[in-house]
């Protein structure tokens, strides 16, 4: 439905995007995830048609909408857009906002579509209100309804939940996902918030410095990051120095890890194909560390964060170095206390030093 093919863009001599390629199939929800300044918003604006690209091409459906020297005007792309600040028209009521993109429809169809959209986002009772009379969440829903009303081929969402509080954010992101799925909308979301990305997207591209680092499912991003940036940006964890014993064993401060060591490739380090004695960094997620009072391996609690259902402990290892451990919340240990831990790793993620 949406395809970016080796897209690049630069402001003057400063490259903003390089060689960005990905495909979204119909009904799929994609996400560009990255820190601010990584180029994700530029990518979104390129797709919407507000910016012109310097190389590559963008296709929506079968139609090439952008390539160097040609750019279909934004209003002709049939792409819906939900802005970070919603950009509701303050001088128009909710229904007028939603009807804004429907001027081509006959009046009765337009009314029906507006009613349908109001119903979809649950704002039937606010039809005649003005944006300034709505709460943040309601404004968000109006923005969504307005973007969906003209049945766009593709919906773009620019940090759509960043103006909302955490609770509302989670609730709304699930709601919006349901709506998009129900309507079978192909959508692309950009955000810097991995929770938002995980909650909404079927497939995520992690971006840094104008380059897509990894285009994958949320599960794979977390469990099989292909490089240090992705490992670091997605989820929590630490890198511990390891010593490769053989192709199935790595030794770290906590013991010897069993698992396939090679095979995982990253663009910066190349595939970890080192022989015995090779030094690597091994990714240890908090859920890889299991608290076990019977374990002989002891670590000292340095910091702890209560997260409701669990604790996130920062533990100091005997031989130096730190790991994070996710532990059931009834295991309440004091700072400075030494607790027993063991490793519970399914597969090894390691990057060559």
């Amino acid at each position: 439905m949406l395809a970016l093919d080796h897209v690049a863009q630069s402001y003057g001599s400063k490259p903003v995007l390089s060689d960005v390629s990905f495909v979204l199939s119909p009904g799929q929800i994609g996400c560009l995830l990255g820190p601010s300044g990584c180029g994700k918003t530029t990518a979104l604006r390129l797709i919407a048609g507000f910016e012109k690209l310097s190389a590559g091409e963008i296709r929506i459906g079968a139609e090439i909408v952008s390539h160097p020297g040609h750019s279909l005007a934004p209003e002709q792309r049939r792409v819906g857009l939900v802005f970070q600040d919603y950009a509701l028209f303050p001088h128009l009521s909710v229904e007028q906002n939603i009807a804004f993109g429907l001027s081509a429809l006959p009046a009765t169809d337009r009314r029906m579509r507006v009613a349908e959209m109001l119903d979809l986002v649950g704002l039937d009772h606010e039809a005649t209100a003005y944006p300034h009379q709505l709460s943040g969440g309601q404004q968000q829903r109006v923005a969504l309804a307005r973007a969906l009303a003209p049945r766009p081929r593709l919906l773009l969402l620019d940090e759509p939940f960043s103006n909302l509080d955490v609770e509302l954010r989670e609730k709304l992101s699930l709601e919006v996902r349901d709506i998009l799925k129900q309507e079978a909308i192909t959508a692309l979301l950009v955000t810097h918030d991995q929770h938002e990305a995980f909650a909404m997207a079927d497939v995520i591209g992690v971006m840094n410095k104008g380059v897509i680092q990894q285009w994958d499912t949320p599960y794979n991003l977390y469990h099989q990051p292909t490089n240090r940036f992705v490992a670091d940006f997605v989820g929590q964890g630490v890198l511990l120095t390891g010593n490769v014993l053989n192709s199935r064993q790595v030794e770290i401060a906590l013991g010897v890890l069993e698992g396939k060591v090679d095979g995982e490739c990253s663009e910066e380090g190349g595939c970890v194909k080192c022989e015995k004695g090779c030094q690597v960094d091994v990714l240890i997620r908090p859920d890889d560390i299991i608290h076990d009072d019977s374990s002989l391996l002891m670590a000292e609690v340095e910091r702890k964060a209560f997260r409701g259902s669990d604790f996130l402990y920062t533990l100091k290892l005997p031989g130096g170095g730190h790991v994070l451990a996710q532990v059931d919340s009834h295991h309440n240990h004091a700072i400075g206390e030494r607790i027993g831990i063991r490793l519970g790793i399914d597969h090894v993620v390691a990057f060559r030093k």
Partner: protein
Amino acid sequence: MIDAKKAPVPGAFFISKQVGSLGPVAVATLLALLTLIPVAVVASAMLHPDQTIWDHLWHHVLPELLVNTLWLALGVSIGVSVLGTGLAWLTAACEFPGRKFFSWALLLPLALPAYVTAFVWIGLLDFTGVLPTWLRESWGITQLPPIRSRGGVILVMILALYPYVYLTARAAFQGQGRRLLEAAQSLGISRRRAFFKIALPMARPGIVAGLSLALMETLADFGTVSVFNYNTFTTAIYQAWFSMFSLPAASQLATILICFVLALVTLEQLSRNGARYATSARGGGGARRIVLSGANALMATSAAGLVFLLAFVIPIGQLLAWTHNVMATDLDARYLDFAWHSLMLAGLGAVLVVSLALALAYAQRLRPTPAMQFSARLATIGYALPGAVLAVGFYIPVAGLDNLIIDAYRDSTGEEIGQILGGTLAVMLLAYCARFLAVGFGPVETGLARITRGMDEAAQVLGTTGLKRLFRVHLPMLRAPLLAATALAFVDIMKELPITLMTRPFGWDTLATRVFEMTSEGEWERAALPAVAICLVGLLPIFFLVKHSDART
């Protein structure tokens, strides 16, 4: 965003916390009184209708002049709206050759008194004017549309007054940013249509602010319509007063005029129907200019150029030519005094007008009740009164107060003293405020409306409230509208005549009174010198305004 009507910002007091929420009300009431006293003095004449004059007016004068006035008001309103808004959009949102120059040059007609422009155009285009004479003698063309006609007076007034709308609409467009236009585009609306569906409606408060100034100026105008001998409500007011010696009848007519304006203003407010024009969605930076090219660019440049030529270059050219003729005999050292007086009165007056306007607009923001809005409208209605009527309405209570003081002094000491208030600059400046509060209020009110409540609250939680917030948050954000208001008030006071004539101290002649001395005996050529001087001094604030308001975009 929080609905202001339901949730007044706590702790948001204007004067001090002790005065509490009465502060804003007090400010608005005081300011309303300032203009209401003269209006009330004028309106009190309603109690003594002059039957003979009314019968006469009713049968022989009113029908024609009502039609005339409505046509004039309608024609000028449409004209200044289209011209002012169109040019504002061109210079604020588009890029074409000469845009930078035109963006400030199109304000220059403000510095020319409208009746002077009118006289110049009649001189050029009437039967004996340069163009018709040449057409007649060289080409035998005699059938030309007459300039001394309804169309002529409307055209000249549009040329003189469009800058009010241009100024306020431009500020509105500049404040919009590009986000909402992009939103419209993403919904399948082209930029051209987005102008009509988004940019234009969003700029409505700004356009209306400028339009109502232009409209009030039109309704209160006497000089320009006199040059055209075009009878309006205001000429009837002056006729009743000056020719039939009935100040009561004049005041009654003026009261009707005010009621008409109040009704219009109220209707406009009601028609907004709760819509807001402020948005936090101004991201995406300033609007990216639409680059016009080819025929479009040529058309934009020619349109702006034509307006500039007709509204400024030609009138000032004629004035300069006349000035050249009389310079040797008329220009003397006194002109330094005239210019200094004008500059000082306009400067002090403009600062005072804008300060009071800010206080009023701020009071209205803190207590946005219907009663408050109505008193704000009342306080700014002085602009719709013909100048001389307002001047006399202002002077009567001042002289009355003086009489009380003088009589009391005489009774207690047996000595005579002169006037205490009459003939002082303080009274003069207050009278300017009564007349020009609207000029300051319009831009400031629309500017203030663009600052969202969220910003107020952000300042508040950072411990910045009351006056501190005004100075640290609002004033910096209001820079552009405040500059615009000051410039407008400055040039308006520079050109003002009736109040200046009536309240000036002995010997305090200004450039404007100089124009009056010359034109009242029909010596238009000699009036060109002070008129050009007004224009030169009036350029100062316009340059200043443009320099500082464009610095940020």
